[in-house]
């Protein structure tokens, strides 16, 4: 298990290096540079700024310097936001995205497993048909539609009953998080429901379920002890990438609900060619994704002994 974990971490580091290199090259391949947006620049000022940020050096040298700083955990200073360190931007805004993402993935996982198990239990009956219809809806409709609809619904509810059930936008309390995280988790929930359903239906026909019945176990015990745990394995597998996707992909939802998450900076930086912020956020997101996948692999080992012990 230790060797396995070590191997996974090592390959994760290589992945992060690859992400950093690819982003660096892609970013420099885009025409223009971050200093072009500066107002009232004479060639002298531009040159001075370029020297200050090290942009006058050859690309290869910039790459080496950049990689060196990155290894020490320093992503540099933002080009467009005066004297703001990239590390500070991540530190200030990632926790917001992370909190939203964790709540969203919790909704998605619990909902997905519950609905999936339910549809399998009522296969081809009314509850199954209704839930599977909603699942198709959840998978095909993009999150910004749900975000807008959710907001609209919330405003109407608040107006009709003249109450403040939940805040419509903004950030600060747990109540602010509920609707955005539901909206954010909806697609994943639909995906997991489908996965869980097919997984449950596969397990029902396994020989060991027949053995469990021949042992005289109650249907509920067979369901929870023998069926659910084995059916959950494929769900856990996709959970890792999904956590990362939700946490980092909440840009639209963050925008609609006016949440100060990291997503906004990520997109803005690309528009403004803010080299250091692009690199910082991309590498950080990449590392986060890699970390989540490794974490899920390790958790998988605990659920499935065949992975742990082989």
């Amino acid at each position, binding site marked *: 298990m230790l060797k396995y974990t070590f191997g996974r971490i090592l390959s994760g580091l290589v992945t992060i290096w690859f992400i950093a290199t690819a982003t660096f090259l892609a970013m420099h391949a885009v025409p223009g540079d971050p200093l072009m947006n500066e107002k009232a620049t004479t060639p002298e000022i531009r040159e001075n700024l370029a020297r200050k940020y090290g942009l006058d050096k050859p690309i290869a040298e910039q790459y080496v310097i950049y990689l060196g700083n990155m290894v020490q955990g320093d992503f540099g200073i933002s080009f467009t936001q005066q004297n703001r360190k990239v590390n500070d931007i991540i530190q200030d805004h990632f926790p917001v995205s992370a909190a939203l993402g964790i709540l969203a993935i919790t909704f998605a996982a619990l909902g997905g497993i519950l609905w999936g198990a339910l549809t399998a239990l009522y296969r081809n009956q009314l509850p199954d048909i209704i839930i599977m219809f909603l699942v198709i809806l959840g998978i095909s409709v993009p999150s910004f539609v749900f975000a807008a609809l959710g907001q609209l619904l919330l405003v109407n509810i608040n107006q009709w009953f003249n109450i403040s059930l939940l805040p419509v936008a903004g950030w600060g309390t747990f109540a602010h998080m509920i609707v955005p995280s539901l909206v954010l988790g909806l697609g994943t929930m639909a995906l997991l429901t489908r996965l869980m359903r097919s997984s449950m239906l596969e397990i029902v026909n396994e020989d060991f379920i*027949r*053995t469990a019945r*021949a*042992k*005289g*176990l109650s249907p509920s015990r067979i369901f929870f002890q023998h069926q659910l745990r*084995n059916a959950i394995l494929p769900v856990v597998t996709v959970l890792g990438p999904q956590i990362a996707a939700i946490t980092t992909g909440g840009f639209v939802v963050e925008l609609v609900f006016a949440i100060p998450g990291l997503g906004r900076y990520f997109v803005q930086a690309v528009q403004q060619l803010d080299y250091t912020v692009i690199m910082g956020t991309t590498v950080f997101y990449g590392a986060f994704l890699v970390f989540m996948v490794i974490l899920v692999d390790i958790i998988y080992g605990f659920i*499935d002994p*065949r992975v742990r012990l082989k």
Partner: protein
Amino acid sequence: MGTHKLLEVSNLSVEFETYGGVVKAVRGVDFSVDAGEVLAIVGESGCGKSVTVQSIMGIIPMPPGKITGGSAKLKGGEILGLQAQAANQFRGKEIGMIFQDPMTSLNPTMTIGAQIAETLKVHRGLSTQQANEIASELLIRTRIPEAQKRLNQYPFEFSGGMLQRAMIAQSLACSPSLLIADEPTTALDVTIQAQILDLLKELQSRDGMAIILITHDLAVVARTAQNVCVMYAGQIVEQGSVDDIFYKSAHPYTLGLKLAMPSNVSQQNKKLEPIPGSPPDLFSPPSGCGYAARCPHAMRICHKENPPLFSDARAPHHAARCWLQAPGAPKTQGLYQTNLIASHGA
């Protein structure tokens, strides 16, 4: 045992509804098992032998499966078609069961010990510690070395033979009076097969437990059973003691099975003789004898009317479902004809 047989099955009929139509998998099966008896049910694939015992246990998938008639009485009490809660009073407790493929018949994410202990906890209300102690004893009884260590291992860490031993240990947990072994050695290689059969015989003779052994292997039958039911196309075509079946085969199908069996005695001129044709379509079973189309001795009546079970006048437990056993039937070479012998011999 009193007046009741341990298990008495009569007129059991089971159907499966499929897209192609209704499959009549079991068509009126009668047999009984005494305490301590080893009964073998033999027949080729698809003859309904597994469906028969799985219906008794109530573990055929329903739907598509459906028990359309008959009864199964365990110590006099009806057990056929019970709801899960009522059925669990005997499943795993009075009747234990082991299956064909031990590799897939155990839960891959639970330790062997936990799976054996589960039965004990559910049926006997034992604590985890007590259950584990008994589980360890069971592994020792089924000859699994290093039982204590093995308890905490998972199925994938066991070999096929060891898994079948663990399955047996699990099914013995509540000291059942009947063990149903559904092709217990089919997935195992020959040496392991012999070991498992020896183990079953040993447990049976020591604990006085009855066994129903489902198999398609006549060698396994000869080695293990006292009594035999030969099944064909969803019906029992011949039943009797092992000696009856092997030395006084009274049904052409039993005879055919024997001729198709390889022998380890070197006989240069002896050829294996396969039974020509294939079993009848159980979507629409023939109105006559199911074997008539393949039978070398078939008569006109065989195609028209399904024969009843004719029993040996001198040994009534030996019976065959064949018109050749009817009084006045023509004499057939190689076939033990009970009524002819009975009437001529007297």
